[in-house]
């Protein structure tokens, strides 16, 4: 092996970069592409909301209940909200979720924002047309003029239907978020296993969850690195699209390489396809109380609903 002679340093690396502002300041801040900003911050947000376990570590009501009991109770309450025909019952169930949230040391503002900020608003947009008379026929309560001879407006049936859906969606999401946010991820997985979800699915869910953590981190890293290299007003969307496409491919490649290593690490310690878990805890009084409470609420809700109908 011969000694390599040192290569000459290129001129442009020795001189100051002419593209920068001559006065020596950092320069005007380039307007970050909307797509970059959204993807970068969204992935950070997702990472935080999915992978933080500070709520499940607090000492609140739901945190003390066994994960399996919580899941079963959740299902029961969801069924009762699905069977409810009257808005009154749904509002009652929603209020219950608020009560449980505050009993579990959850800031109500955070809880409401977390539930309402995404899906129910989407749902509202989606069902808005249903309030109009040409979708849901019926008794018009908010007239909006006439269209080629037929009267048009918001119908009572339409408004009720839209209201019912939004309430159902919000209640359902509130209950689901309550359970998942107060349960640590490993306990949640173990509970799913105890509820007879097949091993293969548990394995895949667990690994996918971990991949998401890494992928989301890589996504925001990539966009941060790209921003650091961006100089000037970079409004070239075609290049941006090419960047996103190339990043997707590179991301896949990296994630795949990691997955091979992970698998080797598992095989090295004797993995042959079965997922063993540490012995699960016994049920305690709190769990029975919660389970009984959930059952009671479910039956009450169904009963009240029948009466009020």
């Amino acid at each position, binding site marked *: 092996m011969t000694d390599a002679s040192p290569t000459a340093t290129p001129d442009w690396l020795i001189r100051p970069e002419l593209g920068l502002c001559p006065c020596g300041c950092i320069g005007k801040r380039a307007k970050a592409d909307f797509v970059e900003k959204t993807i970068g911050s969204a992935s950070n947000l997702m990472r935080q909301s999915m992978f933080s376990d500070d709520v499940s570590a607090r000492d609140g009501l739901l945190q003390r209940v066994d994960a399996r009991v919580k899941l079963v109770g959740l*299902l029961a309450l969801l069924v009762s909200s699905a069977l409810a025909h009257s808005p009154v019952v749904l509002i009652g169930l929603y209020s219950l979720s608020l009560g449980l949230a505050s009993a579990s040391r959850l800031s109500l503002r955070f809880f409401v924002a977390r539930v309402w900020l995404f899906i129910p608003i989407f749902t509202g947009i*989606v069902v808005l047309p249903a309030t109009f008379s040409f979708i849901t026929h019926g008794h018009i309560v908010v007239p909006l003029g006439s269209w080629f001879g037929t009267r048009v407006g918001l119908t009572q049936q339409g408004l009720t239907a839209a209201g019912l859906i939004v309430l159902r969606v919000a209640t359902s999401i509130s209950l689901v978020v309550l359970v998942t946010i107060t349960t640590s991820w490993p306990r949640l997985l173990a509970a799913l296993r105890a509820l007879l979800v097949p091993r293969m699915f548990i394995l895949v869910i667990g690994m996918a969850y971990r991949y998401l953590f890494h992928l989301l981190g890589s996504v925001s890293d990539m966009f941060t690195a790209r921003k650091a290299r961006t100089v000037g007003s970079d409004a070239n969307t075609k290049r941006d699209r090419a960047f996103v*496409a190339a990043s997707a491919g590179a991301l896949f490649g990296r994630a795949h390489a990691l997955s091979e290593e992970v698998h080797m690490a598992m095989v090295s310690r004797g993995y042959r396809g079965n997922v063993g878990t540490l012995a699960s805890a016994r049920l305690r009084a709190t769990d029975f109380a919660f389970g009984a409470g959930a059952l009671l609420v479910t039956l009450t809700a169904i009963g009240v609903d029948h009466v009020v109908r």
Partner: protein
Amino acid sequence: MHIPDGYLSPETCGVMGAAMVPAWMTAGRHVRKVVTSRYVPLLALGAAYSFLVMMFNVPVPDGTTAHAVGAVLIAILLGPWAAVVAVSCALGIQALFFGDGGVLAFGANCFNMAFVMPMVGYAVYKIGTRNLSLTAPRRAVVAGVAGYVGLNAAALCAATEIGLQPSLFHTANGTPLYSPFHLSQSIPAMALAHLTVAGTVELVLTAGVIAYLQRANLPVLRINHPGVREDDSTAMAPRRLGWRWGAASLGLAALLTPVGLLASGSAFGEDSPEHLNLHKYHLQTVPNGLAHYAGFWHHALFNGYDFSNDRHPALGYIASAFVGMAAITVVVFAVLALVGVVRRRHSSSDSAVDSVRA
């Protein structure tokens, strides 16, 4: 096309869930055949990828949301049952953490996106890539098309589930209890969003990843394509579209016949005399000839394409379509057989007869 809790009645949720249980059980067993424990990480990666892809969605008025899924890509790489597992897992994580897709409606969502989509897409892919080499550019294109078709099949199912609710579940005064959108609203709404935007995204993503793998990582592609030749360096026999291709297209066309029901009014020129709008055509009475011959085929088997007194027009259409195709097929084969017999009589003096397998 995630359906939240509240759109589907518990009965519908129960039915769809019951339909998925055997699918999940079969998937759990079958997956082990292709996905040896060596490829489980790849399967989990597929689930994570599907999760991310599904996060980018837009609301569809009169429907739910439109987004790509990635199910067909996973089916191509690891087999359709692996896609069932991967997408179900992704949907499960979304339902639990974001409320994107209901918990009770989980069965329905899985049926649409984790079952119908990969199965339909994979079928299209297999048919379209027969005799193609592993590195052929057309393979990536067919993969994209398969993704497009699969996604829209899933969207159609979702729209159907949503659209059936108001007529089945409503209060006495007509208030819909769950989804307020009828089939005539949900299907066009979901179809439009998925035939245009979401379908295109799915097509580009699927084709893009397959093309990338063909260049950069062929061994991954080979996992689910054992025995497929790598490239076209050896000469190929001329390809002919097989009968399977034709049968599949016809079957698809048959299933789509009820779509016409959505359009109100009937096709131009097909009105029977009773339905004629005389005013429109500036007529006073029904023309003589029309009235005379109108009842000619009175005893047609499926009068008006329906055989149950218009109670289930869609079923009637589909049944009619299949019977019609079967009848046409029988006739065509009979004619071909007859022609073949005649030809053989004439060419019995010739030597070798070229036989090209279909």
